[in-house]
């Protein structure tokens, strides 16, 4: 117990009496964490943006004016039962007409043309959303059977197929790029931390040998460095998370326009702050601890 309390005291003394080195170590750790958080931002925003675009993609199935209620019901039930389909919304002829009028409310020519017609020219429509944009092809294929030829007037998928494929390519590439960037940052982070700690230990190598000469055990020498790793991790994660949280408010002003949520990043950080801080603390502590133990090993041999 005496030893443990002394180790804590020695660690705090070391931090205070090597304040320049302590500040430099925390500064480097904060920079590294800001880089990691920036990467997290990029992943978050790109994922949200692609999800948002995917959500906006759907297939409209226009039904024939001659289709009977039973036939429409059969098609709707069939589409809704497909495993790829997450949502199938039915719009009656009247609803389609209302939507059309709303859409073109400021186009007098189109509205006047409608008035000329005695009957509703628009058929009922089923709007379908699937789990993945690639599933739209399956849905279309499922409907391209002879039984439904007279019921289904047309499908809009062919118009959006190119866009869907592009989104798929972009999403896949973004994910690959993010993964590569994450791996790259992880290596850089480890090298930065390892070298920072190694420099810190190198400057104290003579002290380490003196402690050993006076009769300190290896753990009595290592102990303060373990505690220092905890302190450095707490401070660097605290500073980095605070800076990131403050910057989310600023970035949300611009991202809100794209993502449709004016507090997207702020809300995300607020909801996940404990897990984000915990994971980052764990990683920084683990890296600083391993780095200091490895760097110290050679000075503990005598």
């Amino acid at each position, binding site marked *: 117990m005496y*030893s443990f309390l*002394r180790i804590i005291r020695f660690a705090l003394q070391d931090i205070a009496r090597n304040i320049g080195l302590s500040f430099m170590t925390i500064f480097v750790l904060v920079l590294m964490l800001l880089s990691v958080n920036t990467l997290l931002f990029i992943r978050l925003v790109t994922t949200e943006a692609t999800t948002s675009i995917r959500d906006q993609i759907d297939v409209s199935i226009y039904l024939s004016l001659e289709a009977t209620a039973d036939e429409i019901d059969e098609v709707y039930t069939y589409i809704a039962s497909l495993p790829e389909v997450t949502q199938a919304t039915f719009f009656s002829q009247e609803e389609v007409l209302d939507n059309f009028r709303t859409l073109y409310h400021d186009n007098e020519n189109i509205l006047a043309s409608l008035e000329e017609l005695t009957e509703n020219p628009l058929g009922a429509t089923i709007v379908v959303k699937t789990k993945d944009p690639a599933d739209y092809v399956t849905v279309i294929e499922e409907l391209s059977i002879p039984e439904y030829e007279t019921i289904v007037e047309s499908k809009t998928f062919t118009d959006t197929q190119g866009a869907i494929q592009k989104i798929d390519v972009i999403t896949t590439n973004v994910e690959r790029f993010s993964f590569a960037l994450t791996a790259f940052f992880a290596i850089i982070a480890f090298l930065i931390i390892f070298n920072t700690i190694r420099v810190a230990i190198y400057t104290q190598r003579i002290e380490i040998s003196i*402690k050993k000469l006076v009769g300190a055990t290896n753990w009595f020498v290592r102990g303060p460095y373990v505690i220092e790793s905890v302190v450095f991790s707490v401070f660097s994660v605290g500073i980095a998370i605070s800076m990131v949280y403050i910057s989310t408010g600023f970035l949300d002003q611009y991202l809100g326009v794209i993502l449709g949520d004016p507090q997207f990043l702020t809300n995300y950080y607020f909801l996940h702050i404990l897990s984000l801080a915990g994971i980052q603390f764990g990683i920084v502590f683990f890296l600083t601890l391993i780095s200091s133990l490895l760097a110290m090993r050679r000075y503990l041999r005598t």
Partner: protein
Amino acid sequence: MIHLTSVSKQYTADSVGLADVDLSIEAGEFVSIVGQSGTGKTTLIKLLIAEEKPTSGQIEIGGWDISRIRQSDVPLLRRQIGVIFQDFKLLPKKTVRENVAFALQVAGEPHKRIKDIVPRVLEIVGLGPKMERYPHQLSGGEQQRVVIARSLVHRPKIIVADEPTGNLDSINTQEIMEILKKINEFGTTIVLVTHNRDIVNQLRKRVVVLQDGKIISDERHGKYHLSATAV
């Protein structure tokens, strides 16, 4: 107290630290080890504090065979031997008081005992008023007195001093030697490695001369000379 039996230390094929050395130092003795540079004096010190292990032979300290000492037992050995170096080896970021206290803290001594004993030891070496200063704020002689206080504080049976006056002027040298003599008078065994002819001659204590890793002279009340006169 200290017994070396046929101790050799060979670093490489043509680099010999010690060659078949037999040496016995009894409790309470004050022994000066002299010799030219590279004759094995520092090797002897390193073997005594288990900084190195002998290539062959046996080293016994207080009945404890340290020739093949386990790494985990080295701290225990070092807590029983006071070591004084020419370059002081003080912790620069700790005050005088903290440097001396450190020797007790590593041994797990209670805080109260450390608080009692450290100022007393610092008073003995004349550093009571300067106990809150850092090493760089002291003169060379004062720093060496801190080292002596640190080596004394856990009441070791043996003090090993490797050129303790090497970096000091003549006045400080005399002060340090007076302190070491006092410590010896209280019964502590002192092994002094030195180049300083004057202090060895003034001591009129046992002198062991090393040459090429071998003992060429061992006199009960000897003087400093580097040629064999008695073994």
